């Protein structure tokens, strides 16, 4: 019979461990490598999903969704706009989930590119990148998010450089790096219905002092928000407006965002004149890289299995005896020896609840006393 030893309340303790993984997403996976076979668009047209492999394959993993929308009060909102109600719905949905409704009337709160909901810095139009839990795990580690976007425009239709490559270096600097540089585990974030969130800055143009952590910071270079637990990036459309050097953007003068059907669209025209999927395509093809650290919270109970020197020195293993003689002894005065390979945890009904194995047999005899620490992760 397996002999049970008692575990007292003092023999167990709970710990919480945070594990971090670095997640680098390269732009070639997001657009290019798989010729968009890893991009799934839906008939409802509300968002598009990005996989790390052609999505018809069972090997494909969902890595994020992209969608866009605007507030009903946005100047872009118009009954003539393509998918107008869906774009408003997306914005409203995200706002309700991440910010909650405001006031007694339950108004939709506009996103703001700062840490306070005070109607300043409102961003009524924007993109949403919803990262999959597969890669964000429990949350994105604060202060680790970075995204590089190509901002060269489609200003010159037919020009191969500009048309094909939003990262073109012909002309002005054409990538911006967007980071949550002021956020950390100890500050630089605010709290809302959607959990902790931080501000995303265009750090390519911003001076270090302007975005130094902790706040107060200069939000003039803020271009969006990142919701750490929800794993959602809100990117204001302002990141693609204006002209180089005069605005927090790297877009050259005459910047064009989208090029549907051999025409060109500014970002505003794209928001109104393109379907959600088309606008998302243009953003997706500008993503050069995304990187962040995810966080996995592991709650563990550690059971201290204390084996005194005078316990568990013999075995009921069928090979322990030959006839009735103990194999590991030559004479009666030899100390008994047994070898541990397994530890089982039992409830009060003596039912086996968990089991752990040693990597190699562990000798137990009356001259040693062991404490085996069993960690059970949840």
């Amino acid at each position: 019979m397996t002999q049970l030893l008692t575990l007292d309340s003092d023999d167990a303790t709970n710990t919480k461990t945070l594990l971090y993984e670095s997640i680098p997403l390269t732009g070639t996976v997001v657009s290019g490598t798989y010729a968009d076979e890893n991009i799934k668009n839906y008939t409802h047209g509300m968002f598009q999903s990005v996989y790390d492999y052609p999505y018809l394959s069972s090997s494909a993993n969902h890595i994020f969704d992209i969608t866009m929308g605007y507030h009903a009060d946005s100047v872009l909102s118009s009954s003539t706009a393509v998918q107008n109600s869906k774009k408003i719905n997306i914005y409203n949905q995200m706002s309700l989930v991440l910010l909650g409704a405001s006031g007694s009337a339950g108004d939709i709160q506009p996103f703001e590119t700062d840490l306070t909901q005070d109607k300043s810095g409102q961003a009524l139009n924007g993109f949403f990148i919803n990262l999959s839990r597969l890669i964000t795990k429990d949350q994105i580690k604060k202060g680790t998010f970075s995204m590089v976007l190509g901002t060269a425009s489609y200003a010159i239709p037919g020009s191969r450089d500009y048309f094909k490559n939003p990262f073109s270096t012909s002309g002005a600097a054409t990538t911006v790096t967007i980071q949550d540089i002021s956020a950390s585990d100890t500050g630089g974030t605010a709290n809302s219905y959607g959990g902790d969130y931080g501000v995303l800055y265009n750090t390519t143009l911003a001076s270090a002092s302007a975005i130094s952590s902790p706040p107060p910071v200069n939000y003039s270079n803020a271009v969006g928000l990142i919701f750490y637990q929800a794993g959602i990036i809100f990117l204001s459309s302002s990141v693609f407006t204006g002209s180089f050097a005069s605005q927090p953007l790297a877009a050259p003068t005459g910047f064009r965002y989208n090029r549907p059907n051999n025409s060109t669209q500014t970002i505003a025209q794209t928001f109104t004149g393109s379907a959600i999927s088309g606008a998302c395509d243009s953003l997706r093809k500008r993503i050069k890289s995304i990187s962040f650290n995810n966080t996995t919270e592991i709650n563990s109970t550690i059971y201290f299995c204390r084996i005194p020197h005078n316990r568990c020195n013999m075995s009921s293993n069928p090979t322990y005896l030959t006839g009735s003689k103990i194999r590991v002894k030559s004479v009666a005065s030899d100390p008994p020896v047994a070898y541990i390979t397994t530890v089982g945890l039992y409830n009060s009904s003596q039912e086996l609840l968990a089991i752990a194995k040693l990597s190699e047999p562990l000798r137990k005899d009356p001259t040693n006393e062991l404490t085996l620490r069993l960690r059970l992760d949840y």
Partner: protein
Amino acid sequence: MAFLDNSGDIILDAVLTDLGREKMATGDFSVSYFALGDDEIDYSLYNKNHASGSAYYDLEILQTPVLEAFTGTNAAINGGLLTSTATDILYMPIIKINDKGWATSAVIPDGYNSSYPILYLSDSSNDALGSTTISGILGMDSTTAGYVDSVQYLNGDDHSTKYVLLEDGLDTTTYKGTAANATAFITSNGLLNSQYYVHYDNRFINTVYGASSTSTLSMTTSAGSISVTMGAAATATFDLALENYSTARIAGAKNEIYYSPSNTTDDTTISAIQGPRGNFAAIGLAPKSDLGDKYSLFGNTTTMNGTVCEYIDTTIFVEGVTTGATLQIPLRIIRVKV
């Protein structure tokens, strides 16, 4: 100055068993005990004669590869480490079936001393439908060419006169089987099994019967004597972690077969234990009355003495409650096929 040995503190990652997950889901997960296992260890590899000295005795054992934990059926620790108050013992009790043949009610498994013993258990559920009974087939004397002599079997309908007689004790010729040695080497060392667990497959076995604690097993100077009162065994809560297995608990009674120089018959011709003896027990079994289609689902057919029979093979495990000594008995439930 050398480093201290810090190997006494080891961290292990535990995995939940199926039951553990179930308890977690229902909010009943609470750990109260732990136990240590050594199922992978073959102690016959312990080489006390290693030429290089005692440090090498367990070299091969320590190199034993250990399997990953598995969480499903039979995740349990089969053997396990024990604590004995007496560490200066050289012998531990084992459980054996009495195969001496003098007790007419004591059934000996067919082929008991071969590598493939089988304990037959008759199921009479088809007796009325066939031209012969299962008892008639199993108990047949071979008067026809090609037929075999009867095999001993447990009678599923009569557990009072057919049982397996179990003895435990020190199976060694080093110590005589005297009453004094039994006290000195078994009782005083806390190695007396006053009860035994019987683990059985509850799909096939309905009831386990055991001898009462007032039963007697002894010998005169020349012959054995047994008086057993059988009764249904108590159920026991025991997680063998074998799917479909239940546990019954049967009593042990004092084994009073003793060596004496004045005996005209040696005690070892009466008892299966060669040295000091602890307790004895008897087991009777009754199969489920509704095995029916289980014979085709889990069993097979065979022809015994000209009659086609169907059978189910299973195993019962007997375990000493105190010492953990175990005995595994292959069981064949058999009936006439109609």
